[in-house]
């Protein structure tokens, strides 16, 4: 669970990292568009400033040409005047087409173009006088006719425009600088943030991978350990059963030999004692054999193969023939399926369950056993029902544990391994085993096994 949530967290982090990068991209793009717009506006302001300067310069050149001609009478000055006038006409056209409001300037308080045209008309008039009535007459006209107020107003207005444009350009430049500073900061912070997120999520992913690898190594180690301990246990069980039987055989054989040879010389009590000793040795041998069988469920397991339970049951009933006939028992069964299983273990399972049904009977009881099979989804459900002595439900829990017995050996002999063996076999096959019973009402041992084919 922890593994999953850390993976989800890492994914979220990578996702937010991408989102941050996207935001940075958008912000940077928007900022550069805005900067470009400001640059454009400033270029237009510069153009306008140049126009204002051109107007002023042309007027000054015209004035200089006219005055110098009036003073000196040099014919080159009217040419200079004409040139400046021509240039002024072009500049004025351009100026008139410029809308100051478009570039953020307030409209001039006076009509500048009209003023310039008036001023040019004054200058023209004076030169006309000069050519008609001579330069001295023109000089007099100049003093009386040319109005210095026009010149002053025009100059003042031009200066105001200059100042306004300069202020705007300065402001725009500051704004652009501030904008690019903010963008740089934003990008830097964004990069740091997304870098941090990416690093953290990479770290989390890596630690998650490391954790998983560690877990896998641990699991492998545990598996190796388990395999080894199983092998040890198997070897122990095998050695114990062989080496335990050797001395056991000595005890029982020599006790019996004693009995055979000295039966006439010993009294009844001695023979009784010998009987217990021999019985003990025999029971111990059964126990060892059962224990060995139990330990071999996993270690000597055969690979799974299709097992026809019908014929497995037939074999089992043949093995139990003497026992069943001896107690007058009857075993009936449903049609049984073929399952994927270990054939030897299937027979062991049936032998134990049916054997128990025969064994746990009232002294005069006639065992009736029904082996049932029904399909339950992807598995088969089997039942072995008997009419025996039954089991108090309070003992169900421990029933399948090894060496757990409900009866004394005198009542019902046994080693307490049979049902533990059954459970081990069923669980090895991926099934489950349980019991339904009540005292005096018989018992039904139920178990499941995976079905071979999928139900149609």
């Amino acid at each position, binding site marked *: 669970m922890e593994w999953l949530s850390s993976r989800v967290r890492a994914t979220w982090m990578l996702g937010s990292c991408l989102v941050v990068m996207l935001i940075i991209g958008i912000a940077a793009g928007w900022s550069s568009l805005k900067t470009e717009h400001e640059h454009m506006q400033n270029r237009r302001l510069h153009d306008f400033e140049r126009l204002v300067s051109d107007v002023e310069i042309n007027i000054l050149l015209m004035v200089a040409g006219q005055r110098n001609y009036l003073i000196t009478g040099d014919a080159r000055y009217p040419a200079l005047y004409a040139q400046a006038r021509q240039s002024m006409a072009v500049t004025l056209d351009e100026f008139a087409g410029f809308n100051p409001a478009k570039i953020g300037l307030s409209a001039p308080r006076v009509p500048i173009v009209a003023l310039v045209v008036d001023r040019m008309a004054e200058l023209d008039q004076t030169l006309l006088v000069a050519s008609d009535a001579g330069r001295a007459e023109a000089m007099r006209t100049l003093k009386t006719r040319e109005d210095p107020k026009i010149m002053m107003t025009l100059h003042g207005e031009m200066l105001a425009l200059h100042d306004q444009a300069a202020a705007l350009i300065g402001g725009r430049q500051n704004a652009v600088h501030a904008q690019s500073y903010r963008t740089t900061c934003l990008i830097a912070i964004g990069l740091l943030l997304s870098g941090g997120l990416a690093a953290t999520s990479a770290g989390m992913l890596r630690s998650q991978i490391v954790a998983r690898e560690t877990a896998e190594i641990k699991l492998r180690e545990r598996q190796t350990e388990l395999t080894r301990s199983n092998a040890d246990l198997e070897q122990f069980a*095998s050695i114990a059963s*062989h080496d335990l*039987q*050797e001395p*056991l*055989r*000595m005890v*029982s*054989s*020599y006790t*019996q*030999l004693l009995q*055979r040879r000295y039966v006439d010389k010993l009294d009844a009590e001695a023979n009784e004692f010998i009987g217990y000793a*021999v019985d003990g*040795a*025999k029971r111990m*041998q059964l126990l060892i*054999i059962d224990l060995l069988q139990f330990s071999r469920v996993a270690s000597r397991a055969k690979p799974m193969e299709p097992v026809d339970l019908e014929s497995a049951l037939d074999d089992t009933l043949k093995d139990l023939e003497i026992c069943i006939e001896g107690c007058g028992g009857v075993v009936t069964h449903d049609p049984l399926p073929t399952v994927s299983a270990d054939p030897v273990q299937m027979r062991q399972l049936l032998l134990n369950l049916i054997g128990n049904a025969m064994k746990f009977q009232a002294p005069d009881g006639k065992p009736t056993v029904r082996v049932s099979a029904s399909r339950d989804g992807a598995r088969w459900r089997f039942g072995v029902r008997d009419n025996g002595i039954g089991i108090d439900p309070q003992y169900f829990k421990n029933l399948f544990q090894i060496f757990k017995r409900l009866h004394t050996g005198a009542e019902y002999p046994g080693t307490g391994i049979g049902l533990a063996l059954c459970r081990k076999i069923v669980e090895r096959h991926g099934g489950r085993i349980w019991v339904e019973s009540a005292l005096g009402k018989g018992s039904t041992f139920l178990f499941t096994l995976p079905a071979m084919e999928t139900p149609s």
Partner: protein
Amino acid sequence: MTGRPIEILLVEDNAGDVRLTCEALRDAHVRNNLSVARDGAEAMAMLRKERIYGEAPRPDLVLLDLNLPKMNGQQVLATMKTDPDLLRIPVVVLTTSKAEEDVLRSYDLHANAYITKPVDFDQFIKVVKSIDEFWLTVVTLPRK
């Protein structure tokens, strides 16, 4: 029944088992001369009449335990069955082990029979009797 007592070589390290086999042969009324080898090496020396065993009789039957010191029962069996002089002597493996691989291995090595010693003495006598009946009475053994 043959006129002479049969020669049996018992290869067994456990004194209790040696005595038990003697008693079982006695109770089963098998007329026999029993020689005993206490380990695999001694058994091979007796079979090949080596060293001090120059006078050892050639057995009609070998009863072989598998758990032996020095040279175990399977090694004795393998050596006997590859020796042209000895391979015709019937060998009955008589042991406590019921382990499947021991049984199969013994038959692979050409044991003539494999018998698990029963815990019950009466059963043991029956086994010995059956060995006597089968190998020494029913089966015609090769002449020496």
